[in-house]
């Protein structure tokens, strides 16, 4: 248990120190949100209508940014070999790394989303809904993403390939995230149903992701 906490603390330290990219994803997210009004025009009504979509797509993309370094950095300095050979099950190690990644990337993105949503003229209840659905959905995005990170760890240029591999798998999370968000804004449609499915997708990814990622890491290092 203490090994898990040590690993978690190590991941957090690496992310916030120089060379880590803890808040880079939030900056990228801000840039994506800034680009949208340039692309569709400064019409506040339109922006507030497509606001949830902009925020969700922005988070989905920003969450991918640092994923390719998640295992690659460990592979380069040899610590990944130690993790594979350690008595700790590799699945648990991968889970802890993914949780740390979520704390340093997914969580700040979900917290920043309502702030950026205000710039898009979204109503107050929509801001809360976006924050809530992102908190529920970003673990799913992260745990699907680590599969891609593990698959491409042995490749020199895995970054773009990683995005191509995992984005199709993230479609369900995006669909139900947006459905739950818009359900919270429009009172007529049920909110709980898509929200529960979103939670189920995240929980499912938390089970499947570490198993698949650990398998891919073992095969990749042989």
């Amino acid at each position, binding site marked *: 248990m203490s090994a898990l906490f040590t690993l978690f603390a190590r991941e957090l330290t690496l992310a916030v120190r120089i060379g880590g990219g803890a808040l880079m994803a939030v900056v990228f997210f801000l840039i994506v949100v800034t680009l949208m009004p340039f692309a569709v025009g400064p019409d506040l009504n339109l922006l507030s209508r497509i606001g949830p979509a902009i925020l969700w797509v922005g988070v989905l993309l920003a969450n991918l940014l640092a994923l390719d370094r998640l295992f690659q950095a460990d592979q380069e300095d040899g610590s990944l070999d130690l993790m594979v050979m350690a008595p700790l099950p590799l699945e648990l190690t991968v889970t802890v790394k993914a949780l740390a990644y979520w704390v340093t990337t997914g969580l700040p993105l979900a917290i920043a989303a309502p702030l950026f949503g205000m710039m898009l003229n979204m109503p107050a209840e929509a801001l809360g809904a976006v924050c809530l659905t992102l908190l529920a959905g970003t673990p799913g995005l992260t745990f699907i993403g680590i599969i891609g990170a593990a698959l491409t760890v042995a*490749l020199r240029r895995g970054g773009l390939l990683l995005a*191509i591999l995992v984005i*199709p798998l993230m479609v369900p999370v995006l*669909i139900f995230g947006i459905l739950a968000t818009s359900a919270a804004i429009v009172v007529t449609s049920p909110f709980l149903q898509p929200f529960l499915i979103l939670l189920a997708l995240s929980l499912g990814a938390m089970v499947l992701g570490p198993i698949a990622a650990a*398998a*891919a890491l073992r095969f990749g290092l042989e």
Partner: protein
Amino acid sequence: MGLMDLANPTRFMAVSQRILPWLWGLAAAFLIAGLYMSFFLAPQDYQQGNTVRIMFIHVPAAWLAMMGYSMIALSSIGTLVWRHPLADVSARAAAPIGAAFTFIALVTGSLWGKPMWGAWWVWDARLTSVLVLFLMYLGLIALWRAFDDPARGARIVAVLALVGAVNLPIIKFSVEWWNTLHQPASVFRMGGPTIHPTILWPLLVMAFGATLLFLAIHLAAMRNEVLRRRVRAMQITAARAVATTGTEDGEPELA
């Protein structure tokens, strides 16, 4: 001879060489018969006119798009569980073929959609989930191509193929939830098919012919892949021989 005997690559090459001509012939026969039935025997639809005939290509292609992925997923289990090289060869050979059938299904669907829906592309549930399937095929192929050593990439790609196989039903379900405009499944359903026999029979003959075509191409592609790996192994052996002895056929020393 049991199925396991086929797992020996040498025996596989011998058997597949004997089967292939028959498979090609049968596929051609069924496809010619199917095309004749669909273009001359099947009636026009009272609403859709002649455009209904696109279905005779579109529907088999869409079925084979899914069969191709199932083939990859089953082969991937073979790769991961038994570590058999032929399983990887099978998965690798099936990917471009499945992608091609998926592409055919998308293009013919688009051609049908223009007169029917008034647009080349409609973001309806089935089109979109087939598009996602196509993207996943491309991802698999891209990952295979990224490994310079096929043996090393085999099991990694198998993991991705299985993750995709688990996710495909979820994607299909969520996309259907997201939007439904496409007509529901009408051939395989409880209570028998809802389409008229004069259209159903050409469709089934076409589907069977297209499946045979898929299997023939798949077998031929597997043979190519086995040969390609043998060539690669020979090249590596030859290169190693040059590196150790220093010369080969009077070439100047490399090392």
